[in-house]
């Protein structure tokens, strides 16, 4: 340094108080106070599997990918599968939908799931001597087995079929869930220490016998029997249960279905049947007795089926199947109209006076619902049409829990996963209670994401996400401060790893209009790793502080400080004047003004 040195002969004379202003406790002025409290994001409350969606999106935003994967796997062991086949109600609930587009949660989850499958599974250490038997290796059974193994129990999964996977393997077509992904997922469970015994059928009496060797039995035998149409001519060889058709195709034994195929029904099985038939070279038409709006199938699946050129005949119900010459049948249909709402809240279809019409078909596939298989349960554990379970999956039969499609839940993969997890918690609590251990209190509502599914992290008490003065209430869009957000459109699926596109998904339909035939290759390409991280950054972290520091920056009294060693903030009520700027400005509704305690 050369002259003149930048130093001061004497400090400048300025007006500054000689004493600290800490003596001036401006907090005494207030009549309301802010409370820093994390709520629940609507996606979490709506996730049938109980995943902390907001939590893992935030970890991805921070670049903590390993922590994000861990957070998902605490609740859902198969993100590669749910990312592909879940109906993602989280996205319907997403607050961002009211701002621009909902976050594409399923696409982010899928990309993470593929990462999970490319890594060795976690080592699930045995900490309990007890073993649990799981009957059925569909999503409910797999989830229950996984969570029990994570809780330290030995688990054996019994499966009637030659390969594990249940409806994931037998019912869901390849173009939605590639076999390779499923096989790797099952291997992932085996490698994690879960024992599978395939080709082993369990019936009621045997389930009781299992209790000699196992501390508990979880029955998740699904719903595999197609409901009959109940019309004349149904016994025609041209009529086939849709689910049997899908199973045969998935076994690699596709039956001859001819060109004209009629699919009866409006659920996911019907759509799967139609799109599978299309891929076998047929021209399917879907008959549904209500309209598009009432269809229980995943809306995106219906969209894709329509884009693939599949015909839909709404407000039409089959009345008879007439056997014609050769391999043909005539499906006699009646025109319906919508009447008063029924028990499901949907308007009931009633016959119109428009008379009947006929459709010619080589094959009729029925997909109007499936009956559960309850043979593995003792009689008193089931009603005629479903297993009887309590809040934690226990049946009236001692030592026997049940879940999945057999237990009367919403029949989706994610709901099955959730019910398996809940039963694992029920079994864990029963075994530990029997052993005289202290278990968390019985208030199940406390364990739920604001009335949604149970959080395993809450049950275990090891939530890695630090929550601040948490409440169990969903934070809706009206609680967000959108002034701090920027409009960003949702990521679209890419064609391939290096090509980032903003085109809407085209896929199979485009392949068809290219003049090439449909095949069983996966329809949806998913996102690249970069796109998935970009998409995660669109999450608004509704209701949960993500340390954006706006409150700290904007507090006029400097009453908000970072917690020592914590992840959040402290509000010093000795100086907070209760102005409400922090609560007003918090983008996520994680600060509320309250009169409490004053």
């Amino acid at each position, binding site marked *: *340094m*050369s*002259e*003149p040195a*930048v*130093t*001061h002969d004497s*400090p*400048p*004379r*300025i*007006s*500054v*108080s*000689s*004493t*600290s*202003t*800490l003596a001036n406790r401006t907090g005494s002025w207030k009549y309301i106070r802010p409370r820093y409290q994390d709520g629940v994001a609507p996606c979490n409350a709506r996730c049938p599997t109980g995943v902390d969606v907001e939590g893992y999106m935030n970890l991805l935003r921070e670049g903590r990918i390993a922590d994000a994967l861990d957070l998902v796997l605490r609740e859902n062991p198969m993100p590669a599968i749910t990312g592909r086949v879940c109906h993602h109600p989280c996205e319907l609930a997403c607050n961002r939908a009211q701002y621009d587009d909902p976050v594409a949660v399923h696409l982010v989850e899928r990309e993470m799931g593929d990462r999970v499958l490319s890594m060795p599974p976690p080592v699930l250490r045995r900490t309990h001597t007890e073993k649990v038997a799981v009957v059925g290796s569909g999503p409910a059974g797999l989830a229950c087995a996984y969570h029990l193994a994570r809780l330290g129990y030995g688990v054996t999964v019994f499966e009637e079929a030659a390969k594990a996977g249940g409806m994931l393997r037998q019912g869901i077509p390849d173009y939605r869930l590639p076999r390779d992904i499923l096989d790797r997922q099952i291997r992932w469970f085996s490698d994690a220490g879960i024992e599978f015994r395939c080709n082993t059928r369990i019936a009621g009496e045997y389930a009781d016998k299992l209790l000699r060797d196992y501390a508990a039995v979880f029955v998740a035998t699904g719903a595999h029997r197609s409901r009959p149409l109940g019309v004349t001519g149904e016994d025609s060889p041209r009529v086939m249960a849709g689910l049997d058709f899908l199973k045969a195709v998935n076994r690699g034994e596709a039956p001859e279905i001819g060109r004209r195929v009629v699919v009866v029904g409006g659920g996911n099985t019907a759509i799967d049947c139609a799109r599978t038939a299309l891929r076998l070279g047929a021209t399917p038409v879907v008959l549904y007795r209500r309209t598009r709006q009432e269809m229980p199938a995943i809306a995106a699946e219906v969209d894709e089926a329509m884009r693939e050129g599949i015909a839909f005949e709404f407000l039409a119900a089959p009345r008879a199947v007439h056997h014609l010459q050769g391999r043909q049948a005539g499906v006699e249909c009646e025109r319906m109209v919508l009447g008063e709402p029924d028990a499901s809240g949907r308007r009931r279809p009633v016959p119109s006076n428009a008379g009947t019409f006929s459709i010619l078909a080589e094959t009729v596939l029925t997909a109007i619902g499936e009956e559960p298989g309850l043979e593995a349960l003792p009689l008193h554990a089931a009603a005629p049409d479903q297993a009887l379970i309590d809040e934690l999956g226990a049946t009236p039969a001692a030592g026997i829990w049940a879940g999945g499609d057999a237990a009367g839940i919403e029949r989706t993969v994610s709901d099955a996963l959730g019910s398996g997890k809940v039963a694992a918690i029920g079994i864990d609590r029963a075994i530990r209670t029997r052993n005289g251990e202290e278990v968390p209190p019985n208030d199940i509502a406390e364990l739920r994401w604001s009335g949604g599914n149970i959080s395993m992290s809450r049950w275990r008490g090891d939530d890695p996400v630090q929550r601040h003065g948490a409440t169990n209430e969903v934070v809706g869009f009206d609680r967000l401060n959108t002034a701090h957000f920027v409009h960003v459109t949702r990521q679209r699926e890419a064609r391939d790893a290096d090509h980032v596109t903003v085109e809407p998904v085209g896929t199979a339909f485009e392949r068809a209009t290219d003049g090439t035939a449909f095949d069983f290759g996966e329809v949806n390409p998913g996102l690249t790793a970069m796109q998935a991280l970009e998409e995660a950054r669109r999450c608004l972290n509704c209701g949960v502080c993500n340390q954006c520091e706006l409150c700290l920056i904007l507090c006029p009294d*400097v009453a908000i*400080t970072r917690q020592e060693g914590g992840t959040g903030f402290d509000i010093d009520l000795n100086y907070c004047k209760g102005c409400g700027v922090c609560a007003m400005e918090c983008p996520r509704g994680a600060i509320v003004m309250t009169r409490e305690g004053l």
Partner: protein
Amino acid sequence: MKKVIVGNHAVSLGVKLARCEVISAYPITPQTQVVEMLSEMCASGELNARYIKVESEHSAMAACVGASAAGVRAFTASSSHGLVYMHEMLHWAAGGRLPIVMANVNRALGPGWNIWVDQSDSLSQRDTGWIQLYCETNQEVLDTTIQAFRLAEAVDLPVMVVLDAFYLSHTAEPVDIPDQALVDEFLPQRNATHKLDTADPHAFGALVRPEDYTEMRHDQQLAMARAMTAFDAIEQDWARLTGRSWPALEAYHADDADLLLLTSGTITSTARDVIDERRAAGDRIGLLKMKMFRPFPTAALRTALRGVRRVAVLDRNVSPGHGGIFAEEIRSALYDMPLDDRPMLFGYVLGLGGRDVTPAVINDIIDSTRTAVSPEREDLWVGVKS
């Protein structure tokens, strides 16, 4: 490294090289490019600074006041109506002895609405307690911006770096951009004596009683006096490092001149050309360029003007009801000189609202200054259309 850049970007690069830590500004023509470039630097990470967006110039200066009180280097840029909107906060910055640096692009005030060069905006802030430095070229703009931080921090006073609208702000010239290492050697980290510290909070800018207020103001006055000395030393240090010098008062062919033009800003460059031509024809004419307006270089002016017969002050500004502001201030600086040493002063008001000051205009001024018996009035308005 030499680059061809506009004056606005010369400011931005100077601020970047000075490792400024907080920038808060509101856009206004013709200054906007200055902070646009800085905001891009903040966004890209090229400059490790916090850019605070605000809704007015008053808030921009308030943010700088807060940041500077907390001990960091703060900068803003403004012009014309933006600058006068800051007026109250300019007092807070200076009275709080905060070494904030601001670039002001000289622009006329409305009405009539006018975006061209005129010094009335910065000169109307004459009494706020800010050091004011007027630049002639883009190279001088960049160098002065860097020097301003060192000067401000040496005497705890804010500094305004002033440049002409469009003639500098939007005109590209070759500028030698110094290396960061050189600037780091010239300008060490700021070391504030008082800091606003939330861990040990004190009230800043609070009530001061009549018993103490005078001393605060007097201390400010002493700091202004020190700024004069400090400026010269800082200038020499810069010259040592870069070979470039931009003195507070620069004499050009003034030694043997019987008539001196007194200019500031870009009019100086035009006047230099006129002087070169007339010198070639044997005319003994020279020039004084005033870079520093606050603190006012009274002693240097008296020395430079001792024995000069006549001086023509070119004011691109006016104080309505009085005259050109440089002329008035110089008159008052010369008042105590012996009558024999004192030049006759002609105060010209010209170039307002961006009107061109061409070599022809300057030649006319020289001729009429030479031929007049004495100034007709204190304010000689040039080229007023009837």
